[in-house]
Every structure is written in C-alpha cells, then in structure tokens.
C-alpha cells in the first residue's frame, strides 16, 4: 500500500506491506534507527514517537495508519545543531545511562509537557511516564530532567527537584 506522511518535517511516499508496523517503517524503510524496540507487548515504550504531536508507541500502530499524518522521532528533536530542552535536561541531570529507552522517554515527555501547560509536579511526571520503562536510572534523574525541561519549555524558572537527591 502507498502511504504519504511527514516525518520530522520531511514528506515521504512509500509502498509498505499492510502488516508493517510504524516502528519498522521508521527504522528499516527510512533508516531512522533512533527509535528502538524493547519488547513485543507494547509495554516498554522504547519505540515512542509523536504522531500529530501526541506520543504513540510506534509498535502499536501500522505504517498504513500513519498515512497523511505528521510523525516526529528523536532524530528531529535537535534543531540547527542545538539540543532540544529535553535533550539538554537529560544530559545535565544524568537522565540516561545506556540510552536505549531515552529516545522513547524524551518523546513521551515532550508530549506530556505540552499536554500540561499549567506545569507538572514529580507525581505528575511519574504517572505521565508510566508507559516508558527504564532499567538503568531508577527514574529519579529522568523525573528531575523532565521537570527542568518543562519549566524551560514553558518559560519558567526550574522548580524544585524531586524529594531525595544527595545529602
């Protein structure tokens, strides 16, 4: 089947098998391997991308369902050589170790932050990211990074880090 869609601002037209999942279209047809696959049950969230601005696990969606849609992946987040606020915050707050869950985590967080212009607290971030699993960080620095990025994206000063931290 022929599909037309926009990925990271670039228009694409491709013939895809009806059974092909969006994640494999991105990875294998477009070569966008930043989006990772971590499970076969749509549990881990490593494959999270944005479709029309909302986070979607790209293993739960067929490529044909993305016809006519606007898809964003981790490769499109940095602009003109400048990291996105979330990428910068993950770097500064050590919100990643092995990095495998990171692209999905950042895409999910981007959607979460934009769904909450009023701001987020620690619990809001923890609940909002419960569909994305990380085995390395224990989440604490991810939460800190997302809170910092939320403030930056909403033009506010950073809020307090989560309870805890180093004494």
């Amino acid at each position, binding site marked *: 089947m022929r599909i037309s869609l926009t990925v990271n601002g670039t228009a694409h037209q491709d013939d895809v098998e009806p059974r092909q999942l969006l994640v494999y279209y991105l990875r294998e047809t477009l070569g966008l*391997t930043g989006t990772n696959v971590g499970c076969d049950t749509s549990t881990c969230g490593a494959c999270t991308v944005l479709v029309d601005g909302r986070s979607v696990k790209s293993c739960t969606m067929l490529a044909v369902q993305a016809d006519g849609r606007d898809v964003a992946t*981790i490769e499109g987040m940095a602009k003109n050589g400048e990291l996105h606020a979330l990428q910068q915050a993950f770097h500064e707050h050590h919100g*990643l170790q*092995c990095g495998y869950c990171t692209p999905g985590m950042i895409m999910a967080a981007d959607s979460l932050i934009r769904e909450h212009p009023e701001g987020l607290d620690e619990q809001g971030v923890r609940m909002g990211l419960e569909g*994305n*699993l990380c*085995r390395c960080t224990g989440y604490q620095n991810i*939460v800190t990074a997302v809170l910092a990025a939320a403030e930056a994206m909403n033009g506010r000063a950073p809020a307090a880090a989560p309870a*805890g931290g180093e*004494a």
Partner: protein
Amino acid sequence: MAVAAKYVGTSVPRKEDPELLTGQAKYTDDFVVPGMLHMIVVRSPFAHARIGSVDVSKALAMDGVVAAFSGEDLAGDWAGPLLMAWAVTDDIHNPPHWPLTKDKARYQGDGVAVVVAESRAAATDGAEAVDVEYQALDAVVDMDAALADGAPLVHEDFGTNASYTWTLTNGEVDKVFAEAPVVVKERYVIQRAIPNAIEPRAILVQPNTAMGDFTMWSATQIPHIVKVAMTLGLGISESKLRVIAPRVGGGFGAKLQVYAEEMLALALAKRLGRPIKWVEERSENYLASHHGRDQIQEVELAADADGRIHGYRMKILANMGGYLMIITPGTPLLGAFLYCGCYGGEAYHFECTGVFTNTTPTDAYRGAGRPEATYAIERAIDALGRRVGKDAIAIRRLNFIPAFNEPTPMPGGLMLDSGDYDATLDQALELIGYDDLRAEQQARRERGDPKQLGIGFSTYLEMCGLAPSRVLSALKYAAGGWDAATIRLSPTGKVTVVVGTSPHGQGHATTFSQIAADDLGISVDDIEVVHGDTMLAPLGMDTYGSRSLAIGGVAVHRAAEKLVAKAKKIAAHELEVAEEDLDYEGGTFSVKGAPDKARTVAALAFSAWTAHNLPDGMEPGFEETAVYDPANFVFPYGAHICAVEVDTETGEVKVAKYVAVDDVGLVINPQIVEGQVVGGVIQGIAEALLEEAVYDENGQLLSSSMTNYEIPAASDVPSITIGRGPGLPSNSNELGVKGVGETGTIASPPAVLNAVIDALSVYGITDIGRPVTPERVWRAIRDAKGGAQ
C-alpha cells in the same frame, strides 16, 4: 592521585550522551549489511521432553527460507560446547551444552532447530513450519523436589540433579555452635529474577569468505570473552575473528554470557557465506536469556546471650536451571565469603549445592551472589536482635568490625580494605530523620492506624573489583581478572584511551577521561575512549562485577603514569637537566627554581613523534600500555534505611522514605556514581516488592512477558536520598577507588523486607516471603490473626 585533581571528583557531564540523546547511537540491531540473512531459533515449548525427529523440509520449501538445521544437522560444526568457565569443584557434574540440543529439551525455550531466511518475517514463518516430535517428560522445577529420590533427572547420566557441593570452613564451627547460648536459625527463599535489559540481545555476523575472516557485532558485556569462547566452540582462529560490542543497551549480568545464538550465527555465517542477523524478541529474552538469584537458604548464627555473634553456618541450595552456562555454578560463590556481612566472629561455614531443574539456566544478575549473601545476614541479624532483645541498630553496632583503614581480616576469610560501619549508619540515621520516624510509627500503632509504618536496615558489605587472577585460580575460575589500557597521544596532543572494559551505560568514556586528563594535564574534551572492540582493544576482560573502575580505571592511571615517565625523560633531555630537577604538575614539567623553562606533555608527544631529538636509545612514539592485575578485591559498604507504609487492609506496601549511604572509596564522577546508586537501589526495591519469575509445575514460565513480570515504572517507585559516608579510600589500589555498579541491588532488598517485618511486628509477624506482594502481606496478617475470617 599523583598530580593535582582538576577533573577527578567533579561531575563532568557525560561524554557518551550526545549520540544517545539524538538517536545517532548505533546498537547492534541498528547495523545493516548487504545480503544479510535473518535467523530464528525454534524453541521447545516443553520444559522437559525427549526430541524425536526434527523435520525442516516444510520450512525449506517456503518462500525466502535459505536454510534450516536441527541440532543433529549442526553437530559436526562445533569444536566444543558452549563455554562453562567455572568448574567450582573437581567432581562437578557439568553437562555438555550444545547450541541446539539433540536429545532432550531441558527447559522451555531450549533451542532445537534454526531457520535462516531473506527476511525476518520469512524466517519466523519458516520456524513455524519446522516439525519437531517431542515426547513430553515429567519436569522438575522445585529444588527440594529435584533432590528427592525418584525425581525426574534433567541429565540422566549423572544419576542425580545435584551438580556440585562447594564448602568453605573457617574456625571451629561445630564447637562454637555447640557452646553458644543463642543459636538463631532461619530459612529464606530468594526468588528467581529476570534481568530485563531494555535492549534485547542482538547479533550480526559478517563473514569474509575469501579471507576466512569474521566480524561479529553482539549486544554483549564481554566481547573479549565471547571471542575466546567462539574460538573454542567453532575452531576459528582468534586472529580471524573480531568481536564488537557497539552501544549496548544495559546488561545487568544477562549479557555477561556466551549464548547459543552467538555460536549459531557464526556457524551459519561460516556455512552459508552470508551475513547472519539475529535479534531477540522480548518473549525469547524471558525464556532464553539467563535468569538470576533463585536460592533456598538455611541460615544459622551462634551468639552469646548479649547477641555478639561468634559463628555463622550457611547451607544454600542454588538453582542452576537446565544447564551450566558461563559462570552458573560460580555465581552463588561470589557471595560465599560475605554471609557474615560487616560483622565479626570466629567461626564460619558456607555450603552451597547447585541443583539442576527444568528451568532457564541462572547466572549473574546485578550483584551475583552478593545480594543473596547480604539478604541472608541482614535478615538474620534482625532475627538475632529480636531473640536477645536488641533493636536493629544496637545489634548491628554490637557486631560491627571496628573502623579500620588497613587490611583487616573478617570471618569469611577475606582481607578487607577500609571501612567505618558506624559512620555510614550514623549518616543514614540522620538523613532519614530516624527519631521522628520512630515517633510517627509509635503514634500510628497507638491509634491503630490501618497504615502502619515500618523501618528496615541493611548495613551491607560487598566485595567487587573482580578479581585477583591468583584468587580466581584458587576458586577454579578458568580466566584471569586483570584488565588493560593503552594511551596514545597524537602529534597534536590529542589523546586516545583504549580500554579492555566494555560498558553498557556506566559512563566509562567520561570516567576514564577524567583519570587520564588529570594525569596528563590535558582537557577531557581532548580525550577519546575506545572500548568494546577486540581489534582496537585486543587486551581486555570486559565489564561485570563492578570491576571496570577498580581494575580498568587503575590500568588507565598506570598507562598514563608510564607516559608521564617517558615524557619526563624527553623533557629532561630537551631542557638539559636531570630528571630529578624537574617538577611535574598539571601536564607541565618545569625546572626547579626556573619555572619558565618548561615543557607540556602535549609538546613532548610532538617531540616523540618527530623523533628529531630524543634521548639516546629511546623509541619514537608516545603510546603506553598497562595491564593491571589487582592484589585484592575492593569492599564497598554502607547503610541503607527503608521506611515503608503498609496498608494492613489491602496488604499494599509503599516505600515512604529510602536513604542509601554508600562508601565506595574515591569518587571520580559524583553524578555518575549517584546514578549507579539510585538505579541499583530501585532495581533492588523492585526485587523486594514486585519482581518474580514464576514457573508452573510443568516448567512453563508464567511470568513470561513484560505484562506479567513486573518491572517497575516511574509511578511504582520513590525518589531516594543518597549519602556518601566517610569516603575512605581503598588500599587495594593506588587510586583509592572501589566499585558502585552493584551496591544498590546488593543492599536494598533486605532493607525493604526488614521494614515490612517491622511494620507487621504488631501482629507478631517475623517472616514474610519475597517479593512482598499485597497478597503475601494480606495472607500473613490474616494468618497472624488466626486464619481465615
């Protein structure tokens, strides 16, 4: 450090991050080569079954399928079985373990055939079409049942399901126990865990048939060891094989392994002359990547009436699963010396029996043997405290080995490096606000609050930095424990650090850059760290057992020191002074009393490259290699305190507060160290509260996917507070570093369990199984109240 530290001790932002944050990092599955075939393994659905015929003809007839083989078909391809590197006793039962089984399936997921095709979908369809005749046999899952007379035998040739019994005895154990006024006896079950790195395993093998060369990319922690194992398994010369661990998405021990799929992919690339790719599905990961833990522990402490411990007696059953993999039998022994924790005493006995069952093989999982040891002693010391009427703090302080800063013996027989166990406990008590917590607990008890508070301790001691090669030899491990680093300065003063460790999230590039930068007086930004490639880094023993800094980091430091020594000779020659007339600081040699006469290391690297004016007899070039074999382990320790809120009506347990104080010696990068601590603690809390691999009586894995094996999400776990304790340098190495990768999973489970038991002590409850699910808590309360209501 020999020179002033500019970077060491500071949180240099990770050099690894940019490619990981932007999706440019290449993990194994991201590599594509022309002509690549896809491999799928056909796995036994039965935990125990005799294999009859394996018919691949239907698969071969399918579109896109290129080849398909049974275990029998490939039997002639192997020069040896899968590597088992730790025959812990002379009389161990060590069954041959072939990449595809030929006679019997011994666990659900045991490979019986393999299919390769032009696409992954075609290979999957082909695998469905392989016809295997299984004769199902009775399975044995439970260790006690496996050791009973008449049990089904996993390996009939041995006549038993016991693989080995390994013992360690120090002192007059029987006498101490016979004379002790107090003997505490406990039984604990450590449930099986599934490591679950978020990146599944993946392999790509590219052959060069004309030259007989092979390149293997593998999502592994151990490219160097895999290379040796492939040589032994396939008879390919080591000089014809390059193994690369590219970016690796977490390991947690599950990628410290040599797997059947690595052997298969290489064998098929050799047979077919085409590149072979295999990517694990998560459901396969649950069946066919190794599991961890799974012990039954009988724990005895002998003490005087006050609670001072004199003797330890431990009898462990360790579930091996269906086969022995690389260090399956040795994994429980990594904790063998630590069942005394940080406490004193005169007598120590440890005995471990490895048991075959029809389950996925076990092997190292973050902590590997040491979480099990820590669980036993930290639970048992609370039991001893209850027995002699001392609280969790008093019983620990009574038994702590007093603070020390020089090699000090302990009951398990190790020589500890440095420790101040009271100091970490003091800091943890302060950070958690202990008196207020106890007051709150008392208030809730008095008003009969349905949400009861419990406080639990774990004052742990671990050993890491694996390992002195001579000690490994004494323990019958097949390889050494050294590691290597090569440092090369280019003519323009840029630095390449080549290391034999192989990270998968730990931040070696940043940490090792900091060490080299301070030693050489060069910016961390001018240093590149190369790892995980047996061609670029031929010397290495890889990454596991919290060894990379304590072994590999010291090798980096030593290689830098060798370069500084060479630079000093050139500087003395160029400045026409004796070497002893030079000062060295921050990468610059200057003449004593004439600081204007100076040379930087970078400038001297240029001199070594031009070789226009070197001292007589000196070789040109500016590159040095150090191979470091430690004389002793390193011994991180600390105090973790957990406060839980237990809902006595629903059984739900919530971690209300958690403090981790870990003394890991000299800290190179605080942010990275804290990241390791938090990640490990949360993984350990999950092991205490959520995670459990469950088999039914037929050996079917019930917790077979991420939907029913509960890996914690952000919403399931708390934020924790960290302290660093006194920061006593290790005296096992000249950097003073210890290790931090595993402290969290070693320390935290007993802190959580002890906290739950403390909360439930109002019902007289003194034990509960793990993981502490709401059901277990609810049943424990119901039973304590007198049974079903």
